[in-house]
């Protein structure tokens, strides 16, 4: 079955051919739940109407693929409280400021807010004023954030790490029977940092296929074909169809930098709760910069009300199954985190379809 390798697919890139292959490999009586954990993958799936092309028994489920969506309310509320109490500038990314929490959003509550598009802007701001940087995201943003500590940040630069490790969430989802994931489409961007070897543990320990994919419709379709082939032959492995970009070992320099700055720690995910070894926290040697340990910290549980973002992040519900979707909750008036960012599943579903 060398035809399932990327090299073949490049010649074989006609989507209708891949769909024919999917139908050939499919066992209609067997339900297959394939989860993606990257907003850009969900975007490609929705924009191209990929779900409409697949046999009914194959489900594509958006998972925890948006960093804004998985940041717990606790981190957001404490970031606002600490920065307000201590006369600091709260620096964070544009989408974060609109995330609703039980205590309001950052935009509503922060007294001194700086919206940044690159983490380096947070450091620059700290030259003049005390800054609390709420740093969020998966490996892709954690690596550049780590680089800030090589630049000798001033003492008034406080870092609140809400960084998450993708694989830890995927493992938690594998263990959750209610979710019932049969395979993963692994994130292309994150894999450039972690390397394709990052996901091998998933296919080995949980016996599920993992395919690292790029962001074209053909990439997603060929991943699905490859997953079906692995399921049919009972040979779950980690395969990479984003070969030109993702290497087996990943970006060694970025990995080294992250190890230098961060320790792996248990952390809370909005929707998923606390997951063992799933977050990055500043090393003890950097504790003078750690906002979480330097200031009074309040423990806060997420409160979702009617919003089903939690289930959406877990892959237990599709966005349109939430009672608020497209009614009270729109990109303009988000009630849940998944509607805020363009990477959030609810936001993507809102933009690409009538459901």
């Amino acid at each position, binding site marked *: 079955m060398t035809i399932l390798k990327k090299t073949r697919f490049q010649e074989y890139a006609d989507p209708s051919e891949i769909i024919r292959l999917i139908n050939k490999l499919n066992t209609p009586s067997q339900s297959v739940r394939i989860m993606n954990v990257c907003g850009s993958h969900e975007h490609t799936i929705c924009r191209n109407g990929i779900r409409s092309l697949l046999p009914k028994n194959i489900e594509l489920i958006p998972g925890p693929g948006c960093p804004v969506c998985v940041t717990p309310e606790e981190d957001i509320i404490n970031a606002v409280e600490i920065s307000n109490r201590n006369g600091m500038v709260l620096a964070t990314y544009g989408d974060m400021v609109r995330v609703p929490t039980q205590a309001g959003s950052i935009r509503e509550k922060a007294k001194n807010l700086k919206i940044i598009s690159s983490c380096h802007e947070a450091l620059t701001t700290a030259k003049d004023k005390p800054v609390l940087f709420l740093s969020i995201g998966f490996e892709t943003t954690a690596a550049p954030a780590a680089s800030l500590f090589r630049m000798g940040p001033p003492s008034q630069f406080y870092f609140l790490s809400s960084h998450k490790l993708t694989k830890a969430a995927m493992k938690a989802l594998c263990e959750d029977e209610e979710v019932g994931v049969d395979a993963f489409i692994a994130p292309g961007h994150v894999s450039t940092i972690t390397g394709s070897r990052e996901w091998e543990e998933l296919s080995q320990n949980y016996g599920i296929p993992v395919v690292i994919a790029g962001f074209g*419709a053909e990439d997603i379709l060929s991943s699905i074909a490859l997953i079906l082939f692995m399921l049919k032959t009972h040979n779950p492995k980690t395969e990479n169809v984003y070969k030109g970009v993702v290497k087996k070992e990943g970006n060694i320099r970025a990995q080294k930098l992250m190890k230098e700055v961060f320790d792996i720690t248990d952390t809370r995910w909005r929707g998923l709760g606390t997951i063992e070894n799933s977050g990055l926290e500043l090393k003890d040697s950097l504790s003078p910069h750690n906002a979480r340990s330097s200031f009074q910290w309040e423990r806060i549980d997420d409160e979702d009300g009617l919003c089903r973002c939690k289930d959406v992040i877990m892959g237990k519900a599709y966005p349109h199954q939430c009672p608020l979707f497209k009614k009270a909750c729109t990109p303009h008036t988000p009630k849940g985190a998944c509607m805020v960012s363009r990477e959030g599943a609810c936001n993507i579903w*809102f933009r690409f379809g*009538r459901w």
Partner: protein
Amino acid sequence: MRISLFHGSGGKQTRKLIEEVFLKHFKQSGPLEDAAYLTVPSRQIAATTDSFVINPLFFPGGDIGKLSICGTVNDLVVSGAEPLYITAGFVIEEGFSIDNLNKIAQSMAEEAEKNRIKIVAGDTKVVERGKADGVYINTAGIGTVKRRFSVEDVHPGDAVIITGPIGEHGLCVLIEREQLEVESPVKSDCESLYPLISPLFEIPQVKWMRDPTRGGLATVCLELCEDTGLGMVLFEEKIPVREEVQFLCEMLGFDPLYLANEGRALIVASKEKADEVVELLRKHPSGKKAGVIGHITDEFRGVKLITEIKGERFLDYFEEDPLPRIC
């Protein structure tokens, strides 16, 4: 020279401004009356009004002046009317450059002349600095009705035609406003539709048309489906989008289907006549990329897009305005 509050006082300065800017370009003379006397060749008149608050005022492919004429003309044209007269009211911010006002008036005059319509009445008001953004223009246009289009004539099986590539005006304004540095600048499609569209008035099988401005092609299609209670199938691969527009939209996170156009028309014609209509459109330089992009159906309600890989998705209204002050 800049506009001061005196220019809006109704006194000497106002008169001077009108004479030196507006009357000069609009080629009007004689005493300034309170109303214009018009002769119309028909008892069937179409009337429209529009306001223009675009930011920025000048953009590749046009300016607020040209836009105000084209926008008004196009509303008349897609209603089956031959545009005749137009009026223009200006709300100007104190401090606005008179040079720029001259440029705007000049492009209005040029565009009116091209379309053989007369700017017959005008008004000038000045508001304090900060109470407006440069200049706003309000227009009214009237024309004689040559054809009456009605959604009631739209039936399942009819062809849906677009006259040219979509998304250019919206993207162009966005790039200008955000000062994005792009290699190949996107020009607005701002243009009068009269020369392109008027030959279609003679074809009875042309049933309905609309210019997809704010909300873009998707919104006009959705509105048509709502008004008719019918459905529409659109084929993504058939919808003309310039390569640079597609590329920039993907990069910036916009969907060309929802971006404003200022020189395009969406036309519904009977299936049998569709090719002839397209051929006629393609004879005009502005209609080179015209084509059938879909059809009307009664199998479902709403707008279904068949994506390039033959997937399906239903389009829906955008609740928020992705780009305010686009026209």
